[in-house]
């Protein structure tokens, strides 16, 4: 009989695959990796509501599906609303004894476009109402499904098809929207950032997110070789670089209290991260210096918050 778990060092991972092979994600997709790991952390007895995006299109190419869990995709803008209805409806059925009392895990997922742009309103509503669910945002920093258009999660300086770099434009000219702080400001019990480049940290956070009563939000960094113009064998490495340079710090906000999960002694220069990707190829040294300054500022602010409001 196949073992139920795989042992990796001191960690135990569910051996079952909830995301079946045959999906159409690009080679080296960070998002595919993240979904696979997240599902292993979530396990059975879960219902997934998913917004339109790469993960929706690639896991359900006509006429098949990769999903081994109950899965629902409706529209682009409403994963938060759908999961609200599923959770409230099922809980009402349980309350009235019309459905068996079970600990069902309600999970909604969306890309950065479906979370930061078109889906922001419905997710904000769901968090405010306090439904018991986990939201996972797969942030690959642009609309990759339709061909690399900028989103409000696209970082400053990145070239996309609707924020193209050229003689007169340096690509995306606005700063990445800080979704983590936006959702933390809803005062929900659990908010975290995670990256599949740090798989055990990621799995632990997902487990925590589904276990916590009330809404939880995890912002997952999803390297996209296609859209970021990198080779498909560097996904894990670039994910690590993002954290090591302070571009994407790993931290949790539990009950309003901060915990930085990974803090290098010295942040690596952000240039190392930028140079690894074609989408930043056009940036001048002065632009890179500007980005470095912003990363330093943001990281210092995070540290300050973590010192002022430390999680136990």
């Amino acid at each position: 009989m196949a073992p139920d778990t795989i042992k990796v060092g001191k960690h135990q991972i569910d051996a079952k695959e909830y995301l079946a092979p045959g999906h159409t994600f690009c080679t080296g997709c960070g998002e595919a990796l993240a979904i696979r790991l997240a599902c292993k952390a979530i396990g059975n007895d879960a219902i997934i509501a998913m917004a339109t995006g790469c993960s929706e299109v690639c896991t359900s190419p006509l006429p098949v599906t990769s999903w081994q869990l109950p899965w629902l995709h409706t529209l682009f803008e409403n994963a938060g609303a759908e999961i609200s209805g599923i959770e409230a409806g099922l809980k009402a059925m349980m309350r009235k004894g019309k459905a068996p009392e079970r600990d069902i895990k309600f999970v909604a997922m969306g890309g950065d476009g479906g979370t930061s742009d078109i889906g922001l309103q419905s997710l904000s509503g769901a968090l405010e109402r306090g439904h018991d669910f986990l939201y996972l945002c797969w942030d690959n920093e642009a609309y990759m499904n339709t061909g690399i258009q900028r989103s409000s999660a696209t970082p400053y300086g990145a070239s996309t098809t609707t924020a193209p770099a050229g003689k007169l434009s340096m690509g995306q000219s606005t700063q990445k929207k800080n979704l983590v702080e936006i959702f933390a400001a809803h005062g929900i019990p659990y908010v975290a950032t995670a990256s599949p480049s740090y798989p055990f940290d990621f799995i632990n956070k997902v487990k925590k997110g589904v276990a916590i009563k009330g809404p939880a939000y995890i912002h997952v960094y999803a390297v996209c070789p296609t859209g970021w113009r990198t080779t498909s064998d560097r996904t894990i490495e670039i994910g690590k670089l993002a954290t090591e340079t302070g571009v994407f710090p790993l931290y949790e906000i539990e009950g309003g209290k901060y915990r930085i999960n990974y803090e290098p002694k010295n942040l690596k220069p952000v240039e190392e991260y930028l140079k690894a990707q074609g989408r930043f190829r056009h940036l001048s040294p002065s632009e890179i210096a500007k980005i470095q300054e912003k990363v330093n500022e943001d990281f210092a602010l995070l540290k300050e918050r973590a010192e002022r409001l430390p999680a136990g």
Partner: protein
Amino acid sequence: MKSNRVLLQGSEACVRAAIAAGCRFYAGYPITPATEIMELMSRAMPKAGGVFIQMEDEIASLGAAVGASLGGVKAMTATSGPGFSLMQEHISFAAMAEVPCVIVNVMRGGLSTGLPTRPAQGDVMQARWGAHGDHPILVVAPSSTYEFFDLTVKAFNLAERYRSPVIVLADEVVAHTRESVVLPSAHEVEVEDRVRPSVPPEWYSPYRDPGTGIPPMAAFGEGYRFHVTGLMHDINGYPTERQDETEELMARLFNKISKDFHLLQWYDSYFEEGAEVTVIAYGSVARSALRAVRTAREKGMPVGLLKLKMLWPFMRRTVSQYLQSSRSVIVAEMNMGQLSREVKRVNQGTCPIHTLNRVDGRMITPEQILTAIEEELR
């Protein structure tokens, strides 16, 4: 002499047309199969000195376009089915507040997410009645790269002339097909602009009928008092529930377009002489239909094609003539039968009408239409 012949995708022709028509504001949101229009706009707009903005969804996209138009700029957005659904509330607003704007809907297959990369014509009725409330609307449907150019220019002209939202209802095949076309040069393109107020600000009533049914339109910031609301309003733009004023407003909104129905008969007719059977089609289906009709004529069959370029308002007076002169009519469209309902309504039972429908995301082929013609003439 330098030839103006170019190889263009329908989407590219649409973008060039918008620029040529004077559009200087584009707000949009990516959606297959209309994303190309937006990507091209992100480059074309800054070059033309205009503004391109990517919005957070389609509600915001049309909202921004409406806002820009009120600021005095010709504005547009482009989308496909799901995004078009989100735009409906703003379409109703633009019709009520009489804000010129152009909405391109590149129709894709199916309902809901459907068949995003395949063609359909399922939004014909939505383009007419999707927005809430009784409202007039103008909808054109291109069938080729050249027509996508031509009708986009004309859509802007209609929007400006009638102070109305105008919908360009393309389909995936028209938007993605690359064709060799000769486009008119910039000075050959006929461009209309909205009528601006010629009175001093203190005399201006933004919704007073000057006799044409279309009030001159000030831009925000020009010094005119311009109060804009989606509520029923009087000639000053202020909310009203007075029966005489609401009646007058509704009558004017409809009359400003219906008085010109005779000018809004936009179609092409092929092989109409002696045609006993007439095929009615629009969009990419009209291309298949033309091939079928041509083949049928070569075989000696008396058949003609009526290609509709204006879908709404429905061209009653044109279509009626063909219904009277034909022994039977075939309406071919990539939906379950939408425009055919209008044809039947106009027909009043005088001419047998046969529908040819396809909703599997594939084009209606010339062979399908030819078979239908042969059956009619058997």
